[in-house]
């Protein structure tokens, strides 16, 4: 009853415009940057937001690179089968597979795309990439391939559309830097509720 009432009141209040105006923005034309330029721009914009960027030649180099970047990390939460074969023990790190727990200090996800325009990562939830990995631990590591770094958000939306059509997974996250707040006294502090630190590994 309430639903019909609201809808009929809305219909009574509105009439169709002669030319409805869906809008497409034009910044994309300026922001379409191919290959290396997009990577460099992504890096610069992500670093300005406080992310740590590491570049690796291939996946097997990841454990060692992480051991250098976060030497205190003994365990890393992850759940993507592609990580199983990597040389973690050589780097002195124990991988933990499965759901996140409140005691996890570091977690590793893979991004679907990265947007150079603002240094933003695009993650989609799945069994391999639970969104709790991105919010529970102190340190969040995100792996992205060079070929998946695009210029503008519209390109990222294109990738999402290609993968999911309009049937999104439970969460699609745009992540730009670490958790922060200015709510106390106007000063910016990191690690409000989400991770204190964001590391992006470009492969």
């Amino acid at each position, binding site marked *: 009853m*309430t639903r019909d009432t*609201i*809808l009929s*009141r*809305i219909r*009574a*209040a*509105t009439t*169709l*415009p002669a030319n*409805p*105006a*869906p*809008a*497409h*923005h*034009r*910044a994309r034309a300026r922001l379409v940057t191919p290959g290396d330029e997009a990577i460099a721009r992504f890096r610069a914009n992500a670093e300005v937001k406080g992310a740590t960027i590491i570049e690796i030649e291939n996946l097997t180099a990841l454990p060692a690179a992480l051991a250098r970047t976060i030497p205190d990390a003994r365990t890393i939460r992850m*759940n993507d089968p592609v990580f199983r074969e990597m040389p973690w023990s050589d780097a002195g790190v124990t991988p933990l597979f*499965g*759901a*996140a727990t*409140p005691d996890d200090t570091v977690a590793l996800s893979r991004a679907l795309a990265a947007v150079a325009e*603002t240094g*933003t990562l695009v993650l989609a*939830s*799945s*069994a391999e990439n*639970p*969104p*709790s990995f991105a*919010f529970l631990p102190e340190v969040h590591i995100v792996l992205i391939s060079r070929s998946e770094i695009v210029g503008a*958000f*519209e390109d990222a*939306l294109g990738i*999402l559309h290609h993968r999911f059509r*309009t049937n*999104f*997974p*439970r*969460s*699609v*996250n*745009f*992540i*730009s830097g*670490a*958790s*922060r*707040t200015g*709510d*106390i*006294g*106007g*000063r910016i*502090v990191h*690690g*409000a*509720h*989400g991770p204190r630190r964001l590391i992006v590994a470009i492969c």
Partner: protein
Amino acid sequence: MTPTTSEFPANATRALTDSRLQSALAKLPGGLVAQRRAAVASLPEFEAMRNEATAIRDATLSNLAFHLETFEAKAIAMGSHVHWAADAAVACRIVTSICRTAGARLVVKGKSMVTEEIGLNPHLEREGLNVVETDLGEYIIQQRGEAPSHIIAPAIHLTEADVEADFRRYHDHLANDRPLGSSDSLVAEARAVLREKFLAADVGITGANFLVAETGSSIIVTNEGNGDLTQILPRVHIVVATIDKVVPTLSDAMTLLRVLARSATGQDMTAYTTFATGPRRASDLDGPDECHIVIVDNGRTEMLASEMRAALRCIRCGACMNNCPVYNAIGGHAYGWVYPGPIGAVLTPALLGIAETHHLPHASTFCGSCESVCPVKIPLVSLMRSWRERAHDRGLQSVTSRAVASCWSYTARHPALYHLIARFAVAIGGSLGRAKGRFRKLPFARGWLKHRDLPAPQGRTFQQLWKETERGVPR
């Protein structure tokens, strides 16, 4: 939240003499205004996007029923439950019923103005639920029993010292002698305390910056990550959103998101922009078992049918109040309800009625800064003026004001009489004021004269002098 909008003059006076509030407000102009300017300057297409954002909002509002139905169908297809609430009471009942059915005891909340508007927290608490605000600013003021003073920065009126005192009082399970002087330590403590709540909560309630019809998703835009933890960890997720939050497509949402963060905090993107669609999937390791979306009217359909429709374009960025000289002088609480600043001056009368709220649209200089920074070009000055017209038609001003206004109006429409009275009045004023050139005291204009002098007239009117200088030859 019980409105005190009719007590605005007293609220404003109190705010002006509150030295702690004033020192917190002094931080605002340097911060958010300058940041917005820089962010806008860095995006050459900003003005064009602003026009597109405005067009998207208008087009959506013109066809709102269609877009809401599209949203509903898609949200249901993706596994969400969609509920419709005509007013605040119904919305609160729906949320309570969802919590009851889930056997909930603890509820965590992300920031949501509409839940303030419908009085959700007190309602849930009366029903025996424990409710915790998780946005840091909201958490702080919840502990203090206060209302948010700003849409984006609810605790901006407080200093670090205020928050330290609060945390020592409320987190009494922690060691008394722990160091808590810096904002770093305060944030770390809040993080730890609230982490426990996230993990124990049965229900997570968020607002929505937008509802996307194309995918049946809700979007939240945050920096802290609390909104995300609220909608990942508990087994039930409830989204509360007003009817005007819907946007047709992801592409439309992207245009709005680009202008939102820049206008609000000067960031090109906030740390987290999250699209939530339906409950967890069969293979997911986390996420809620149930996702509910409560669509709330509470006066919006009336606004849609009136000249106030443009106010429904609002995307809750807060730029209008950041740039408002009145808001910067008195802060958000003085407005007396949920929505402060220029948007509050337009929205509050629509939701509570002009009789109780007429001070809000009157307490403006009409400087137009708000309109000039609004990312969706809401004609805030014109809308405030419309409220003044309604107040005038209902005779809501004081008897004196109306009498003075009538006299002025009458004489202004009768030029010969006007010029005669004017000559007389300025002759007196001019001779009384000749020596000093100004008045410190007069039997009228008390408000003006309390704080500043009133310059004296020169003693003759221009019309009088022009006639005396032979048809157009200036002195």
